[in-house]
């Protein structure tokens, strides 16, 4: 139960952090990516804050033998740069720039009960399901690894 409540608190804090930073507003995402327009560096500060904190805490926390509520660590260990990583990130980035929504923002902004985040959220789910079907039938991902 601690494990689940922990995840709930992390989700809540993450959403509040996103809200405070201003990046629940697609204008701030597009503004950051709009390097040849009216550039808005807000997201850079948010990334710096988040990475700055976690860069330090990561090292401290990993000194523990195990996490507090779990017997094991679940942290990716792969190192190799694969076509799947590059092509996937390329496709993700194009979508991120076109809409101004990443998955975290799309879930959090559902709480606004407005139509546009719902459109983006539903289409993100469709994109994930499309990946699942395609990967299941063609082994797309393992072919690109």
């Amino acid at each position, binding site marked *: 139960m601690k494990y*689940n409540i922990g*995840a*709930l608190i*992390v*989700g*809540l*804090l*993450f959403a*509040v*952090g996103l809200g*405070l*930073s*201003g990046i629940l*507003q*697609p*204008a701030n995402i597009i503004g950051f*990516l*709009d390097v040849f327009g009216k550039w808005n560096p807000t997201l850079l500060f*948010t990334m710096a*804050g*988040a*990475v700055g*904190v*976690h*860069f330090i805490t*990561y090292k401290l926390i990993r000194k523990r033998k195990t*996490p507090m*509520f*779990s017997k094991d660590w679940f942290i*990716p260990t792969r*190192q190799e740069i694969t076509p*799947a990583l590059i092509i*996937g990130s*390329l*496709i*993700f*980035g*194009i*979508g*991120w*720039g*076109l*809409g*101004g*929504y*990443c*998955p975290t923002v799309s*879930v959090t902004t*559902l*709480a*606004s009960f407005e139509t546009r985040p719902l459109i*983006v959220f*539903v*289409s*993100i*789910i469709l*994109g*994930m399901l*499309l*990946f699942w079907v395609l990967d299941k039938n063609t082994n797309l991902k393992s072919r690109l690894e």
Partner: protein
Amino acid sequence: MATEWVMGLVGGVVIGIAVSLMLLWNGRVTGVSSIVYGVLVPIKGDLAWRWYFIVGLLLGGLSLKFTAPELLAVELQTKAWIGAIAGILVGFGAMLGGGCTSGHGVCGVSRVSPRSIVATIVFMTAGMAAVILLRKTGLLV
């Protein structure tokens, strides 16, 4: 403008604390696309915490709605149909690339993972190209 930068930084620090707690408590990376995908295509025994996390995000969003609704100004910068295409690309790309802005961009870069650093550079550059395209075609609202 200066306030926006400061708030950007403050929000970032809160996000940094959130992902640190996920690591400290549950030993996990806070990769939101993977968490959502794990709800859509569930693995047995690995489901409940994902729902709790998503409910947490929604509760956080709701608390903003009632305390600072201006932070949830969620209008798209493009037409709705472009937003729909954008979402499909985001969902598909995040799964093929093994992560998104949270998993690669925040957690991966923080632990200096070469894969995540490359992914972050690629998706930021691609995002910039997409915005240039929107601007050139007059589709940026």
